[in-house]
C-alpha cells in the first residue's frame, strides 16, 4: 500500500517534480478564475438568474463572516470566500473518477496554512497598524507574549494537520474498503466524505476569519482586554 504521506511524481519539468495533486490544483484554480471572470462579466442592477445565484453565494459568505466574528465582511470577503471555494472544490474533486483531492496531500494543505499565516499578519497590520499588530501579541497582558508567539504558529499548524488528516483519512479509508470489498461498498463512505469536505472547508475558512478578527481586535483596543482570542483548542 502506498504511503499517504508521500506523493509520487508523474513527470519532471526541469528540476520540479509534477504530481497529480499539482495538476488538479492548477485545474481547479483555472476553473475558479475563468468561471468567476466569465460569470461576473456583465453585472446589472436587475440581476439575471445567473447573477442572482452568484449573489446568493456572496451574501451567504458575508452572513457567515458577520455572524462568526461580528466584523464587517467587506475587506475579508475576497480572501475568505476564495479560501472556502477553493478548499470546497479541492475536497469535492474526488467525485470525478480517478482524481484524488489535492487537499489529501501534505503540500497543498501546508501551502494553504502558510497563506493563512501571512494573511493574519497582513490583515492585522492593515486593520490595526504595525504598532497595533505588535501590541496584539500582548493581548491579555505582557506575560502572555511568548505563549501568543507560539500560538500564532501552532494554531496555523493545527489547521494544516486538521485539513490534511480529515481529507486524507477519507481517501485512505475508501482505498482500504475498495481493496477489501467490491465496487459499490465504498459509496456510503464517499457520501460521508462529501459532508466532511464541506464541513472542513467551512471550518478552515471560519477559523482563518476568527484568527484575523481576533488579531485586528486585540491590536485596536488601546487597553487590551481578554476577549475572544482562544477559540482554538
Amino acid at each position, binding site marked *: 500500500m502506498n504511503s499517504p504521506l508521500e506523493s509520487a511524481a508523474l513527470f519532471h519539468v526541469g528540476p520540479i517534480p509534477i504530481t497529480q495533486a499539482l495538476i488538479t490544483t492548477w485545474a481547479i484554480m483555472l476553473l475558479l478564475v475563468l468561471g468567476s471572470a466569465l460569470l461576473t462579466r456583465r453585472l446589472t442592477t436587475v440581476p439575471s438568474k445567473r447573477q442572482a445565484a452568484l449573489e446568493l453565494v456572496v451574501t451567504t459568505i458575508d452572513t457567515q463572516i458577520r455572524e462568526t466574528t461580528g466584523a464587517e465582511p467587506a475587506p475579508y470577503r475576497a480572501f475568505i470566500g476564495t479560501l472556502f471555494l477553493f478548499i470546497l472544490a479541492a475536497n469535492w474533486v474526488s467525485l470525478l473518477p480517478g482524481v484524488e483531492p489535492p487537499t489529501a496531500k501534505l503540500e497543498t494543505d501546508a501551502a494553504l496554512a502558510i497563506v493563512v499565516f501571512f494573511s493574519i499578519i497582513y490583515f492585522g497590520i492593515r486593520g490595526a497598524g504595525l504598532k497595533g499588530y505588535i501590541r496584539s501579541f500582548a493581548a491579555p497582558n505582557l506575560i502572555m507574549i511568548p505563549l501568543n508567539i507560539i500560538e500564532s504558529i501552532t494554531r496555523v499548524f493545527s489547521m494544516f494537520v486538521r485539513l490534511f*488528516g480529515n481529507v486524507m483519512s477519507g481517501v485512505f479509508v475508501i482505498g482500504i474498503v475498495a481493496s477489501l470489498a467490491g465496487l459499490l461498498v465504498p459509496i456510503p463512505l464517499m457520501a460521508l466524505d462529501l459532508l466532511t469536505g464541506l*464541513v472542513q472547508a*467551512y*471550518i478552515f475558512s471560519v477559523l482563518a476569519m476568527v484568527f484575523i478578527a481576533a488579531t485586528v481586535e486585540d491590536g485596536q483596543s488601546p487597553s487590551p482586554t481578554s476577549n475572544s482570542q482562544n477559540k482554538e483548542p
Partner: protein
Amino acid sequence: MDYLSLASIICAALSVSFGALGPALAEGRAVAAAMDAIARQPEAANTISRTLFVGLAMIETTAIYCLVISLLLLFANPLLA
C-alpha cells in the same frame, strides 16, 4: 522482524484505538446536548446544528491527530529508515 518495527506497529494500533475513545465519548455528549437543545427550542435548530458541526469537527481533530501519528509511525518512521 526486529523489535523496533514490532513496537511501532503495536504503538500505531494503540494510538488509533485510544485516540478514538476520547473523541467518541465527547462527540456523544455534544450530540446529546445539541439534541436536548433542539428539542427545547426547535426554532433555533439551524444555529445549533451549524455550531454542532463545527464543534464536532474540532473534537474529531484529536482523533485525526492520533491517526496522523500512527501513519507517521507506520510509513515515515525515522527510526526504521
